[in-house]
């Protein structure tokens, strides 16, 4: 039972990342009708917003280390610590939460630039060409990041306050063996919050209502005198922010490197297909579902019976779903039936 609970939790945080990326992919696809292979790159860019902020905050200079007396020792001390003392250290400690705030405007801007600068010229082109150009863009973005930050993963730490593990087991009366990192729990809550926010935006605001109307019938909404294009651009920006935030929050779990976006993108596409192209709840549900399945498949009990199943389970599920339910779990008729 303990192991069972742990695997579900494990699956939920990975599934959270899939769900957030898949949500953005589906949003862009549903509104603009564009298949965005650069969406994984947005996830990666978000993570590197945090890395850049960390680099910026820890710009340091050599300072005489007073604690060593028998020779002249120097240590690197960040300017922030020199200027602000303990406050400075605390700021550095909280670099990931701060980057979340920073990432929102940055990713929104990146999203706008991408949509206005490139994607808008591809509405009328074929899906193959959209895939190709965004694939090229993804390569360019990740190579730029590689040139700037190097090819190695860059470790990032969660704030000290949440770096420990939560004793979930004892809280639920399952024994003390079940502990789980606080940060991953936070990631899960954060994912739920973001998903909730996006759904609330689409379903509870007038703006979102118009966007949904535009997704259903773009032309009619346009005829009513609404500039639907402007709203769709905003939606693209929101999708970029969602992917970026997922990336920022994921940095303490997985040290970011330049190709993390591509790795997640492939899986997220599978998630979208399983969930049903164009269905937002489908994308989220499939994300969590596949995350959990993957984490169960990596249990040693399962691996003894079916060796290597953890590597392929997601793809297997995708193949089975497409053979049994070609539209995906929640796909509707007429969406992307080419």
């Amino acid at each position, binding site marked *: 039972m303990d192991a069972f609970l742990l695997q579900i939790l494990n699956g939920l945080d990975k599934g959270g990342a899939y769900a957030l990326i898949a949500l953005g992919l589906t949003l862009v696809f549903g509104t603009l009708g564009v*298949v965005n292979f650069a969406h994984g790159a947005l996830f990666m860019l978000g993570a590197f917003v945090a890395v850049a902020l960390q680099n910026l905050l820890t710009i340091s200079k050599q300072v005489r280390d007073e604690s060593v007396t028998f020779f002249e020792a120097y240590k690197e001390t960040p300017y922030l610590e020199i200027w602000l003392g303990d406050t400075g250290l605390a700021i550095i400690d909280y670099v990931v939460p701060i980057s979340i705030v920073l990432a929102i405007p940055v990713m929104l801007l990146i999203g706008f630039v991408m949509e206005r600068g*490139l994607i808008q*010229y591809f509405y009328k*082109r*074929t*899906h*193959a*060409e959209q*895939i*190709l*150009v965004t*694939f*090229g*863009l*993804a*390569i*360019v973005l990740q*190579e*730029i990041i*590689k*040139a700037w930050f190097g090819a190695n993963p860059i470790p990032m730490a969660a704030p000290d306050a949440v770096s420990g593990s939560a004793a979930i087991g004892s809280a639920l009366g399952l024994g003390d063996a079940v502990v789980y990192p606080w940060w991953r729990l936070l990631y899960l809550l954060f994912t739920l919050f973001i998903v909730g926010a996006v759904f609330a935006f689409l379903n509870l605001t007038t703006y979102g209502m118009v966007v949904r109307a535009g997704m259903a019938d773009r032309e009619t909404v346009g005829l009513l005198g609404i500039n639907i294009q402007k709203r769709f651009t905003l939606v693209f920006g929101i999708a970029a922010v969602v992917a970026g935030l997922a990336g920022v929050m994921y940095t303490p779990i997985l040290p970011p490197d330049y190709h993390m976006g*591509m790795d997640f993108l*492939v899986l997220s*596409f*599978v998630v*979208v*297909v399983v969930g049903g*192209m164009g269905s937002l709840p489908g994308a989220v549900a499939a994300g969590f579902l596949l995350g959990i399945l993957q984490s169960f498949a990596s249990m040693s009990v399962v691996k003894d019976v079916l*060796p*290597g199943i953890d*590597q*392929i389970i*997601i*793809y*297997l599920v*995708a*193949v089975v779903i*497409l*053979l049994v339910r*070609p539209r995906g779990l929640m796909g509707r008729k007429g969406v*992307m039936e*080419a």
Partner: protein
Amino acid sequence: MLMESPRKDYMIMAIFTAVVLTMPLWTAPFGASYPDLLQKFAIYGIFAVGFNLLFGLTGYLSFGHAAFLGVGSYAAVWSFKLLSMNVLPAIVFAILIAALFAVLIGFVSLRRSGIYFSILTLALAQMSYNMAYSVLTPITNGETGLQLEHGDPRVLDFAFGAEETAGLPSTNLFGLEMSGWPGFYFCAVVLILAFFLSLRIFKSPFGLKLRAIKSNQNRMMYTGYNTRPHLLLVFVISGMYAGLAGSLLAVTDPLAGAERMQWTASGEVVLMTILGGAGTLVGPLLGAGLIKYFENIFSAINEGVLHSAFSFLPDFLNDFLTFIVAPFVGEGWHLTLGALFMAVVIFLPGGIMEGIRRLTGLAKRTASHRGGKGSARTGGPAHSAEG
């Protein structure tokens, strides 16, 4: 186009054969005339020609074609290990295995079209890649990659009285060693055969059906054609081309690793085909050659080379230009590739071949303008040159 006489085909083939076989001569001025690189041109040319059969004719964009390349490599190395160092059994075996594999993948992924198809092929190829790395280690030798060893059975070789040598044996064609120039000429001959087959497919009724699927699959089905067998057939043929290319990679260097199957490798063949011009006969070859050539040239350039290249300029300009260009060469070669690729898709979706066509069209138009303004204004002949 279809009704063109077979004589024209023979002309094309004759010219193509001559161009390929004289490659060592005309690539010399570019500094590319050495067997290793030329072999790569030929092998990736085959790969791209095969990919083009699928994507160029039917419009089905497969993002997992490298899986067949990898499977071909593994099969060929196994043939070297178990049967013989002769390359012919290896190639035949690789093509067969790749075909089988393509039937499996094609059967599943061709149930959907459009982006679903792309994503499915991508997912299945990633799955094969992951499996090659983990579960299938007994077959693929995991991360180290499959290679020749002492004590491989090689039953056919030993049955014909070959001796175990001190070093590892090298691949051969009935005794002719497949390294250096013989290796290149072997690949070149295979490329010519592969190209000929692709030409025949392009011009055949089968090719016409595939084009019909690309332009309007629904209408094709309304007229009573079941399109899926045709799609599966071309998918398998295309997979066999990739398997062939993979086996040739193993011929030139008898080891196979899983990284050959990674989806970036699949992306590369897409890039080659698009860059050259999808749906054209020679386009993919041009694309493959260009990408492999520039990969070779660009990735060898470093800052020192740049500094000496710009040394005729004043110092500050030299430094500035080096600073600007450096990220695009050497390690950053992929950046150039990605940017170039984007530019091609945005401005020239037909690739280099369309560029050539536009240029010749332009030349013809200016020529007709000069010939007589009156006739150009009516527009008839000038515009037909564009199409």
